[in-house]
C-alpha cells in the first residue's frame, strides 16, 4: 500500500468515527464535539485531495465559525439536556433501515457507474487559480453569494434579538 492509501484510510476512519459520534451520541454537547472531529477530518481529506485553500476555508468557516456558533446556541438554551434523542415519528430502527437502503443504493451507484476520470497530477497550489476564477467566470455568483451572506447576517440579527414593545 502506498502512503497515500494508508493516510486516506486513517483519515476516513477518523472522519467516519466522528460522524458516528454525531449521529449516535445521546448528549448534544458530545455530538457537537464529535462534529468538530468530523469537520477536522473533512478538512484534512480536502488537503489530501490537493485542495489546500479549501482545507483552510473549511477550518476557518466550519470549525472556527459554525461550530462555535452551534456551541453558543447549545449553551444559551440551557434546558437542552431535557430533549433526548429519540424521535417519536421515526424511531431509531426504521430510521436505520431507511438510511441503510439509501446507503446501499448510493454504494451501488458509486461502484457500478462508469466514471470518466483521469489520473490526478501532482498537487499544485490552488489559491491563485481559485481567486482568478472567482473574479473571472464566477464573478456574478460570487457577488450574489456575498449579498446572500449580508442578508443572512441582517436576518439573523433581526430574528434573534429580543422584541422591545412600547
Amino acid at each position, binding site marked *: 500500500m502506498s502512503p497515500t492509501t494508508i493516510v486516506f484510510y486513517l483519515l476516513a476512519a477518523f472522519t467516519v468515527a466522528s460522524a458516528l459520534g*454525531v449521529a449516535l451520541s445521546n448528549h448534544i454537547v458530545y455530538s457537537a464535539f464529535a462534529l468538530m472531529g468530523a469537520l477536522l477530518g473533512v478538512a484534512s481529506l480536502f488537503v489530501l*485531495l490537493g*485542495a489546500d485553500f479549501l482545507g483552510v476555508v473549511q477550518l476557518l468557516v466550519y470549525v472556527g465559525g459554525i461550530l462555535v456558533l452551534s456551541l453558543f446556541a447549545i449553551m444559551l438554551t440551557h434546558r437542552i439536556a431535557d*430533549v433526548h434523542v429519540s424521535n417519536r415519528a421515526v424511531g431509531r430502527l426504521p430510521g436505520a433501515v431507511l438510511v441503510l437502503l439509501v446507503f446501499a443504493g448510493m454504494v451501488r451507484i458509486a461502484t457500478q457507474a462508469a466514471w470518466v476520470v483521469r489520473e490526478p497530477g501532482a498537487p499544485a497550489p490552488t489559491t491563485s487559480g481559485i481567486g482568478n476564477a472567482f473574479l473571472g467566470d464566477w464573478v456574478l455568483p460570487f457577488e450574489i453569494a456575498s449579498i446572500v451572506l449580508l442578508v443572512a447576517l441582517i436576518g439573523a440579527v433581526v430574528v434573534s434579538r429580543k422584541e422591545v414593545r412600547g
Partner: protein
Amino acid sequence: MGEIGITHWVVLSAILFSLGLFCVLTRRNALGILMGIELILNSANVNYVAFARYADTGYDGQIFAIFVIMLAAAEAAIGLAIVLGVYQAFETIDVDATDRLRG
C-alpha cells in the same frame, strides 16, 4: 486495497451522507438536526472536491464547494437564530413541541 480511486471517495461521502440523514431523521433536538445537515453538506463537498481532482474540470468543483460552505454559514446563522427565537417562545427546542405558528 489498491490505489485510491474516485469510488473510494464517493463511498466515503455516501457514508457521511447516510450518517447525517440518520441524525436528521432520528433527532427531535433542533440543534441536532442542524448538525446532521452540516454533515450532509460536508459529504456533498467531499464529492465536489474529489471530482474536481479526478475529472478534468479545472477549479469548478472546488468553487462549488466554496459556495456550499458560504451557504452553510448563512444557513447556520439563520437556523441558530431561529432556534434561539423558538427557545424564547416555547422554552424548549424539541421540534415536536413547537407546533404553533402564533404564540
